[in-house]
């Protein structure tokens, strides 16, 4: 039977990379909801920008002293690139919790993959590729919306998208690695409530972290979100210095790299012991 397999499949065929074959399943599953999901990628930014950028922005921009604090730009322009990055974080964090546990304990799809020639590391890479895809769609959708506004229509948006993807992965990979060690979802709501939401609120998206108490600032500074926000905002508003850009990029890359290593290890333990 195996020889007939080889004949029919063809000996010289160039195969598809393993991670892509894992990714195909996520794509197919997601395909059931892609329309609503794509709509969400545009609607959510529009709502946030309308509410926070234009609504709250009108108040902020009228307050004396705030233009200096925000670097001389409108509040909309200040938060828009940051919201782009934060949206990628949100989507990636959610995708890294329940859907991962499904693969390990409910549908056991990842266990099914491990019974094929795929290795746990390749399964992990395929999942990472999927997180990246979700981040691209989220950040990309946000960037397209930002083109509609005069204050944010800059070439820097092109750089903000990969920054959003890197930030998304900087959250997705460590959280996925954590989820891969869990036998239930009891800790998941707490991760969102006490990890992701406070990060969203205090890591520089809505106001400069200099406004935070001095003791809290370092906490904001270690989150990947702050680095992503600084990069994206700097790129879109054209205020980024080369050293700052290198530093923030290096931190994000380190998070993504470490996350990928942790993920591979967690998948290896879970699927191969």
């Amino acid at each position, binding site marked *: *039977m195996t020889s007939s*397999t080889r004949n*029919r499949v063809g000996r010289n065929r160039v*195969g598809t990379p393993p991670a892509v074959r894992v990714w195909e399943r996520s794509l197919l599953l997601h395909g059931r909801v892609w329309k609503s999901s794509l709509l969400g990628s545009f609607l959510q930014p529009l709502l946030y920008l309308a509410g926070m950028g234009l609504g709250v922005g009108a108040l902020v921009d009228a307050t004396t002293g705030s233009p200096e604090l925000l670097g001389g730009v409108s509040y909309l322009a200040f938060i828009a690139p940051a919201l782009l990055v934060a949206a990628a974080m949100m989507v990636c964090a959610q995708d890294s919790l329940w859907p991962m546990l499904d693969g390990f304990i409910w549908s056991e799809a990842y266990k099914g*993959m491990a019974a094929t020639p795929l290795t746990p590391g390749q399964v992990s890479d395929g999942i990472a590729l999927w997180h990246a895809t979700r981040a691209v769609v989220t950040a990309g959708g946000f960037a397209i919306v930002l083109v509609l506004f005069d204050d944010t229509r800059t070439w820097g948006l092109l750089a903000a998208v990969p920054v959003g993807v890197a930030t998304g992965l900087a959250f997705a990979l460590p959280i996925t690695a954590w989820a891969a060690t869990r036998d239930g979802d009891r800790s998941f709501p707490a991760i969102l409530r006490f990890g992701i939401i406070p990060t969203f609120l205090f890591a520089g998206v809505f106001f400069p972290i200099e406004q935070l108490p001095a003791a809290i600032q370092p906490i904001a500074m270690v989150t990947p979100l702050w680095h992503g926000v600084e990069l994206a905002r700097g790129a879109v508003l054209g205020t980024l210095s080369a050293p700052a850009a290198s530093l923030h990029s290096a931190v994000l890359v380190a998070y993504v790299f470490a996350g990928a290593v942790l993920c591979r290890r967690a998948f290896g333990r879970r699927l*191969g012991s």
Partner: protein
Amino acid sequence: MAAAPLITARGLVKRFGDFAAVAGIDVEVESGESFGFLGPNGAGKSSTMRMIGCVSPPTSGELRIFGLDPVTDGREIRARLGVVPQQDQLDAELTVEENLVVYGRYFDIPRAECRRRAAELLDFVQLTDRAGSKVDPLSGGMKRRVTIARSLINEPSLLLLDEPTTGLDPQARHVLWDRLYRLKQRGVTLVLTTHYMDEAEQLCDRLVVMDGGRIVAEGSPRSLIQQHSTREVLELRYAPGTNEERAHAIADIGDRQEVLPDRVLVYTHDGEAALHEVHERDAAPISSLVRRSSLEDVFLRLTGRTLVD
């Protein structure tokens, strides 16, 4: 020259911490045969199957599949195996066909070829008419058949089935047995686990009885029954709570007795004659049954416990 065995295990051990789920087993499976692991819950069947399936490295001992070492050649072995795990692992939201195609892609089989094989396999498991429907609403027996079809997508020569029919109704079980029997006729080597003695008797040329991580007996179903049991069994039911007392009164009838909570089993070569004697002792039961010995009796004899409780 005899062909090398498809599976060889010597002193195979799987530990989880201090606990030995598989405590040193020796097994050989020849190409084309149908081999079973029979044992109760927790006997170590799945742990053994996962080692053979190269998803769980042995703690110690030697294991060869297709003559290859699972630790170093796991990918190559898995590429040639079909696996039906204890839990179906299907994507409930995808269609039956999509489940097969997605799985085929894990083997790097081109999409068009996956679809061609899926159609063929769904025909084989008699689910062609459900190809386009989601997996979620299918019955347990149908899902099991989807899983079997899926496990064949890479055209394996060795198929591992972990409790293929547990939880299915009798009719669904017979449909599955029929399909598995056809696979065996096509030359596919079947290795399965079960805690149903009738399944082992139906499907297995040879089997090992496992208990507590060890092999307690090995042979064909028929030879195991011959070795470890009598030809017939007389089952007696008495009023609740009186089994011990009644059994004592008829202790010398038959070769051997087992007193279970709900019945007394008398092992004998002639069940009717034994029943006649029981009546003569004034130990008439509420009901009685004479039947042939089964692997259930072998298991009871070897371990002192019933297989399914």
